[in-house]
């Protein structure tokens, strides 16, 4: 699993494992759009909370042809530096699906068009400054079926 901010999470109290300090979610789908929608649903669950998205990963595409995205959220009641994650409300995940290198290139280019559309949409907020691509995920494919890719962005806003 790749870490979004290169910062590991340390549990110093055994009770932390059974507390609500760390929440874990998995969504699953064989289709890129549906998977993306499910990811948005999880991010919405943690919007306006003290949780930050600390890990995200993509796996699957085997004989079941289903892909899964796992997400870890860590509760941060007092901001710390470096941050252990990114705000769910500012996180955007774009997925794409294709069967070979040529089609993957096209699908990735279409995803980038959607990123541009997001940038344009967010620009209506005067505080919006930039988009950062934090992570790319890639998984698949068995029996010549499909590879899934995902791009994880965060939106950056000016403070104050």
């Amino acid at each position, binding site marked *: 699993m*790749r*870490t*979004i*901010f*290169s910062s590991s999470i340390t549990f110093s109290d055994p009770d932390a494992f059974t507390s609500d300090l760390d929440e874990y979610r998995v969504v699953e789908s064989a289709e890129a759009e549906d998977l993306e929608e499910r990811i948005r649903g999880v991010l919405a669950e943690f919007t306006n909370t003290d949780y930050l998205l600390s890990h995200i990963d993509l796996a699957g*595409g*085997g*004989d079941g042809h289903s892909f899964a995205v796992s997400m870890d959220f860590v509760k941060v009641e007092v901001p710390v530096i470096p941050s252990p994650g990114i705000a769910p409300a500012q996180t955007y995940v774009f997925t794409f699906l294709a069967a*070979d*290198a*040529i089609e*993957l*290139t096209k699908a*990735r*280019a279409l995803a*980038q*068009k959607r*990123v*541009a559309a997001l*940038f*344009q949409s967010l*620009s209506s907020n005067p505080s919006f*400054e*930039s*988009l*950062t*691509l*934090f*992570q*790319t*995920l*890639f*998984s*698949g*494919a*068995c*029996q*010549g079926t499909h*590879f899934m*890719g995902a791009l994880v962005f965060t939106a*950056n806003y000016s403070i104050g």
Partner: protein
Amino acid sequence: MGRLVGDCFIQYNTLAAVDGENQQTLFIEADDARGLIARLISTLSQIPDLTPPWTITHHDLAGGGHGEKYVMKLELARNQGGVTFPNGAPQPFFSHLYPLGMEASDHPELVVHRQTAQAQLAALFASTPTTITVDTVFAGAALGHRFPWTEVIAEFFG
């Protein structure tokens, strides 16, 4: 030490940067690790040597189930035209890149191949007074087929 790939962020500061000419994605496909690395070297050699140079920001690998093809994905970006690297600029890679590709079907074989790769790295390190950074990705494998992995290795001077 310079940054290579992995946790290397690309920041788009303008709309033009998002869909501009300073970022690109390469998908490289092959039936085995040797072929994958050969195609990677060939593909990178066709990219023009520009200023500022292209750098690899993300390196992913998938496939290998049922003994089928592997696909490597590389994200490239250039520090120009609204594209920046907020957590450190990656190193240019053109003249100092040593990609390795390996594959194996089981744990003992994986260990042997990994040790071979380590020996290659050690030889590379011994031959030049440089720092070497390695980014490794690993994929595979369904129904007892192959696990491939690739390493993108860069040496840094200074």
